[in-house]
C-alpha cells in the first residue's frame, strides 16, 4: 500500500518538475520584451476603452504614447479626451515630458429642429436607426440636413452623456460628456461637433447645418440658418464664415462676445449658460423685434431645459 502511495507521489512530482522546466524554457524563448512604462501609463489612463483617442483601447494608446516618447521625445498630438489634461499631465510626468494644456471639449448638437420649430410632415415607419432613415428620405420634418431624432448618437455613447429629449425629439448633451467623438462619428448628418467647453460652460454656436437657401430652409424649420451673413458682418474677430448659405463659428477664434446672437434674424445662433440680459430696444421694424424676442425666448428655453436635464441627471 505504501509503495503505491510513494510511487504515485514521486511520479506525479516528477511530471510536475518536468512540466515546469518545459514551461520555463518556452516562456524564455517566446518572451515579449515590453517597456514596463506601458503598464504604468495604462494604470493612469481611465480604462474606458472608448476609442476617443483614435486607438482601439487604452492599452494600445499607452503603447503608442510610450513608443512616441521613446522615439520622438514628445507626445504631442496625443490626447485622452476622457481624462483630459489632468491624465495627460500624469502621463507626461511618467514619461518625463511636458505636455501642453489642452482646452476641454464637449459634443454640441447643432440642430434645433424640434417638433415646435419644425413641424412633422411625414411619418417614418421602420427600424429606429438614423443611418437607415438617412438613406431613405430627408426626415420627418422635411429638413434634409437636420436631426432625424432616432438616437444613433445615444446608442454609441458609453458615458451616458447624450439622451433624446422627448419634448424636442433632439439629443441633449449633459456634463458627463468627455468628447470621445463617438456620437460625431455615428451621426449620419454630421450635426454633432466637438467644440471648446468654454469657461463656465459658456458656448456660442450656430445651431443649424442646413445648406439650403434661406427660403426652403425656413419652410421646413423656423430656426434655420438662412445664410443672411449678418453675423459675419458683426463679428469683430473674423470667427464666423459663411459657406453654402450656412454660417459657421470657429470656436478657436470666438471670444464669446455674443454680438452675433443678437443680430441673427432666425435665432439660429445659440448662447449657452450666459447670464440673462435685457433685450435692447432696437430701432428696426416691429417684425424684427418680435422675431428677436422669439429668439431670446427660444435660447432661454434651450438653456433652461439643459439645466433641468443636468439637474435631473445629477
Amino acid at each position, binding site marked *: 500500500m505504501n509503495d503505491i502511495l510513494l510511487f504515485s507521489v514521486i511520479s506525479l512530482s516528477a511530471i510536475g518538475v518536468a512540466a515546469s522546466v518545459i514551461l520555463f524554457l518556452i516562456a524564455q524563448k517566446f518572451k515579449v520584451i515590453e517597456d514596463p512604462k506601458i503598464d504604468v501609463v495604462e494604470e493612469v489612463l481611465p480604462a474606458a476603452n472608448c476609442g476617443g483617442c483614435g486607438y482601439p483601447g487604452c492599452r494600445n494608446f499607452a503603447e503608442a504614447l510610450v513608443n512616441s516618447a521613446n522615439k520622438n521625445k514628445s507626445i504631442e498630438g496625443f490626447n485622452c479626451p476622457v481624462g483630459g489634461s489632468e491624465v495627460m499631465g500624469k502621463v507626461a510626468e511618467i514619461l518625463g515630458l511636458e505636455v501642453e494644456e489642452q482646452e476641454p471639449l464637449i459634443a454640441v448638437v447643432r440642430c434645433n429642429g424640434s417638433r415646435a420649430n419644425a413641424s*412633422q410632415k411625414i*411619418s*417614418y*415607419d*421602420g427600424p429606429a436607426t438614423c443611418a*437607415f432613415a438617412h438613406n431613405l428620405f430627408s426626415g420627418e420634418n422635411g429638413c434634409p440636413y437636420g436631426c432625424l431624432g432616432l438616437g444613433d448618437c445615444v446608442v454609441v455613447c458609453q458615458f451616458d452623456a447624450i439622451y433624446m429629449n422627448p419634448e424636442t425629439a433632439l439629443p441633449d448633451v449633459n456634463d458627463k460628456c468627455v468628447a470621445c467623438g463617438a456620437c460625431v462619428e455615428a451621426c449620419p448628418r454630421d450635426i454633432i461637433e466637438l467644440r471648446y467647453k468654454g469657461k463656465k460652460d459658456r458656448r456660442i454656436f450656430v445651431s443649424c447645418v442646413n445648406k439650403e437657401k434661406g427660403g426652403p430652409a425656413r419652410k421646413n424649420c423656423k430656426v434655420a440658418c438662412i445664410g443672411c451673413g449678418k453675423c459675419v458682418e458683426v463679428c469683430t474677430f473674423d470667427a464666423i464664415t459663411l459657406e453654402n448659405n450656412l454660417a459657421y463659428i470657429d470656436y478657436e477664434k470666438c471670444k464669446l462676445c455674443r454680438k452675433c446672437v443678437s443680430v441673427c434674424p432666425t435665432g439660429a445662433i445659440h448662447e449657452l449658460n450666459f447670464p440673462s440680459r435685457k433685450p435692447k430696444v432696437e430701432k428696426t421694424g416691429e417684425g424684427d423685434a418680435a422675431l428677436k424676442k422669439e429668439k431670446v425666448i427660444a435660447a432661454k428655453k434651450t438653456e433652461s431645459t439643459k439645466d433641468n436635464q443636468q439637474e435631473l441627471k445629477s
Partner: protein
Amino acid sequence: MNMLIVSGSPHIHGDTSVKKIMYGVVYAMIPAMLVSVYFFGLGALRVLAISILACLLFEWVIQKYLIKGPLTINDGSALVTGVLLAFNVPSNLPIWILIIGAFVSIGIGKMSFGGLGKNPFNPALVGRVFLLISFPVQMTSWPVPKLLFGCQALTDAITGPTPLGILKGGLKMGKTVQELMTEMPSYVQELLGNQGGSLGEVSAIALIIGAIYMFVRKIITWEVPVAYFGSVVVFTGILWLIDPMLYVNPAFHLVTGGLMLGVFYMATDMVSTPLSSKGMLIFGLGCGILTVVIRVWGAYPEGVSFAILIMNAFAPLINMGFKPKRFGEKVIEA
C-alpha cells in the same frame, strides 16, 4: 389628407405570422389528442388540460413580472409547448409532477433565454427529459390502453411497459427478437395507437394525419422528417440484416415509441433546428443515428428526446457549417 408614411420596401407583407404557424401546429395535434383521450380516457384529458393551463400560466407570469415585456401568451407558442409536454408523459402522471414539468419547460427551457425564438432547446423536450431523469418511476409506468367506454382509466390500476421497453428488457434477459415479438401488439394495433406509451406517441396514424396537414399548410418542410426517417430506416435496416435475432426490423422502430411524434412535431420545431435545407438534412441525420444508438445500445429504451436535444445543441454549429448554396457562387468556365 393624412400624413404620408415613409418606410423601406417591401411595402406589402405575406400572410404568414407566428400566431398562424403556432395555431397550425396545435390544429395538427388535434387527431393525436383525440386518439389519446380515446385510449387513455379521462386521465389523458386531465394531463392535457393541466399541462396547457400550467404552461400558459407560467408564460404569462414570467412575461408580466420578470421580463416585463409585451404579453406573448397569445402567440400560441406556450400552447404548443403545453400540448407537446402532455404528449410526452404517461396519462397517470401525478399533477404536481406535471406542473413542475411545465415550469421547467416554459421557465427554464424558454423564458430564461429571453422567450420565444431565443431558446436553444425545444422547451417541451427540456421539460420531458427533466421529468424523466428526476421522476423515472412515475414517468415510465405507462397505463395499458383501455378504451374510454370500458372505463378504468382514472384509477390506472393496470400499468405495463411500452413495446420498446419489452424489447429492451427481453433482449437483456437473453430472449431473441422473434420470441419477444409474440408478446407485443400487432403492427396494425401499434399504428392505431393501441400500445403502451405516453399520451401523444401511441398512434402513428393520428400523428401522420396531423403531419400531412402541416405539410399542406407549409408549416414544416420535408428535410428533417425525410432525413430522420431515412437514417433510422437505413441504420436499423443494416443492423437487422446483420442479425435479425438480436436486432428488430426497421418497421418496428418506425411505429413504436416517440419517433413519429419526435420527427414531425419536435425535430421540426423552428426555433431550435438549423436554418438552411442542408443544415436540416444534417440535423435529421444526426437525430436518426443518435435515436437508434440510444435505442439499441443505450440504457434507456427510448432515445428520441435525447437525440433531438443533443442535436439542438449542435444546431448553431450546423448553421455555421452548412450554408445554403449562393446564387452565382460557382465560377462558370467561359
